[in-house]
């Protein structure tokens, strides 16, 4: 059905030209979209590399773009996304939706008020190993989920200074571990309690952060999420182990590579990125699904619509709220009670209101 495919004439406004922009741009191009780019830094290089056009500012971008992809640093997400939504554009916004849950909820409100679509870029839901695991769990392959472990880590993201600033990025918990916090909820269900610890220190000029989050789920399962922004040589690695009363599922990117090499190390300072276990880029899978939703409706799409992507704006807000609870636990040293089921209901009501407005 042609309505489910992006129009060849689709113009995507990419706001931001950093690491994630470099992953999104080729995906949009692969779907036949035209790119316009606005960024305070690196826009020309990005446009040149992927066949896009640089525009002078956000206003000009909003004039020419059909949809907007927000790939700026976290604290600017709300301002950019709100402007795009107010201009009547659908928005794909890189995770986390906001630095605070307040920002994330405000963005959801903006989408509702504008009656436009908003999706968070929780790309790990589109990585085949995670998607297949979730599908297998949902179809009962491991029985009732009991104890889950997720780990994700790589070198400290020193390539862009804002990551190291907790006030801007929320550190490893909000920027990196939010992927697995979202996944744990996607796989094992709503969350009732969060406990987290984090240790950060700088040695020989290099920052390091290790964090643990333990979630208790409403159905009784417990999840451990571990995140690392480590030493400069650290190879990016993700893994999970999911145990239920009828079986287990496990994955470790360090063991799953279809190409194994023994080559001299890459010089330090580059930005590493997880290689897909197999097949197409998960960013392309993600953006194809989002583009189909954008093409399916000029207005807000209900989460139960068959064209809705596998992740919703509400999921994006709740992921921020779980990460925020984890940061509160780090600060207080105590467990933090949470009721994401109630939050999901409350936020879904906002959605319903929005779609009927």
């Amino acid at each position, binding site marked *: 059905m042609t309505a489910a495919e992006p129009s060849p004439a689709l113009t995507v406004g990419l706001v931001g030209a950093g690491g994630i922009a470099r992953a999104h741009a080729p995906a949009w191009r692969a779907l036949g979209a035209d790119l316009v780019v606005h960024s305070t830094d690196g826009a020309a290089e990005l446009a040149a590399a992927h066949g896009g056009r640089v525009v002078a500012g956000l206003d000009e971008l909003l004039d020419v773009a059909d949809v907007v992809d927000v790939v700026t640093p976290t604290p600017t997400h709300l301002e950019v996304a709100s402007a795009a939504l107010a201009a009547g554009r659908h928005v794909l916004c890189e995770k986390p939706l906001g630095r605070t849950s307040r920002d994330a909820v405000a963005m959801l409100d903006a989408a509702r008020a504008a009656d436009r679509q908003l999706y968070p870029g929780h790309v790990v839901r589109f990585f085949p190993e995670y998607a297949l695991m979730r599908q297998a769990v949902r179809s009962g392959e491991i029985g*009732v*989920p*009991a*104890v889950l*472990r997720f*780990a994700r880590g790589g070198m400290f993201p020193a390539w862009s200074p804002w990551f190291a600033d907790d006030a801007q990025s929320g550190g490893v918990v909000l920027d990196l571990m939010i992927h697995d916090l979202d996944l744990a909820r996607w796989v094992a269900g709503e969350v009732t*309690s969060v*406990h987290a*610890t*984090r*240790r950060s*220190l700088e*040695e*020989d000029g*290099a920052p*390091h*952060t*290790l*964090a*643990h989050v*333990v979630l*208790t789920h409403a159905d*009784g*399962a*417990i*999840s*451990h999420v*571990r995140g*690392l922004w*480590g*030493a400069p*040589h*650290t190879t990016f690695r993700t893994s999970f*182990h999911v*145990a*239920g*009363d*009828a*079986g*287990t599922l496990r994955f470790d990117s360090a063991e799953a590579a279809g190409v194994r090499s023994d080559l001299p190390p890459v010089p330090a300072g580059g930005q590493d990125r997880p290689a897909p276990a197999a097949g197409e880029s998960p960013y392309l899978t993600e953006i194809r699904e989002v583009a189909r939703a954008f093409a399916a409706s000029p207005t807000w799409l209900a989460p139960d619509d068959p064209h809705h992507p596998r992740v919703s704006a509400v999921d994006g807000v709740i992921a921020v709220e779980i990460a925020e609870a984890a940061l509160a636990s780090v600060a207080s*040293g*105590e*467990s933090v009670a949470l009721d994401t089921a109630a939050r999901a209901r409350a936020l879904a009501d906002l959605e319903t209101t929005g779609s009927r407005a």
Partner: protein
Amino acid sequence: MTPAPAPLRVAILSFAHVHAASYVALLRDRPDIELLTADPDAATAPAGELRGAAFAAEHGAAYVDTYAEALAWRPDAVVVCSENSRHRDVVLAAAATGAHVLCEKPLATRVEDAEEMVAACAAAGVRLMTAYPVRFSPEFGTLRGLVASGALGTVLGGTGTNNGKVPAGRAWFTDPELAGGGALADHVVHLADLLDALLGEEPVAVRAVSNRVLYGGDPQVRAETGALVSITYAGGAEVVVDCSWSVPDGAPTWGGLTLQVVGTGGTVEIDPFAAHVGGLVAQGTRQAWLGFGENLDALMLEHFLGCVRTGETPGPDGQVGLRTLRVVAAAQRSAAEGGAVVRLGA
């Protein structure tokens, strides 16, 4: 020529623990060891569990009916393999006769019992060692060397897993009274011991959550089967341990233990039970697991008996057995209180 030293007299007290068979096999045929066994609590075990005189006959070990008879034989050392809650009485009796003690883990089911055992052994002038065999794995030796040499830099923390099948063949393991708990009591202590040795620091805060999703419908399993334990050490290291009985019955091996340590110098992960030949056997219907790692029980016994001969202090000692039991007790309290953080020390 110096004459060969007199054989050491070693008594294995109780066959409750599944390791008793391994200890008997390792000690039975040695010319430098005289072995005697006793398993007076055999009658309390469920029908169908091989215990007592029948177990001794099956494994070819000399046997007496009571601990009193075994201790009257004046063993130089005893290996205590009774149900966890019964360690205390056996250890106190052995210490009173002057026998050095190797006691299965956890040292006891109550902290005050372990304190009493440590004090009694010290007062009697006998060595008390806690049976933590993973401490003797070459992999742990490598990790310890990397931390000690500074290659890992400052330790930020890590993740430990000690997952196994639900203990089978010995019902008391899943009886909270006799075992002192479930997966928390059974599996946290090994990693707590390794971290104790690695960091040389006391835990200052423990937090745990547990559940009974695994084997939830099994009336034989009356304790927690899944748990995650967060431990903060005095120097700031943050560790989370998954101690769940989450290895399915159909797995090709009992389970395993891993410890990943993250430092400013990088990450090291050990998997002391990884060495194996894999494949598919039995017309391709069953996964093979032909393990060929070191026999850690043998290394541990060798160390203990060597210390008994020389008079040196064996380790892991009773103190670390006590410290690790305190971690278990704190984790149990935290889990019972819904994940409240329990502060230790002071």
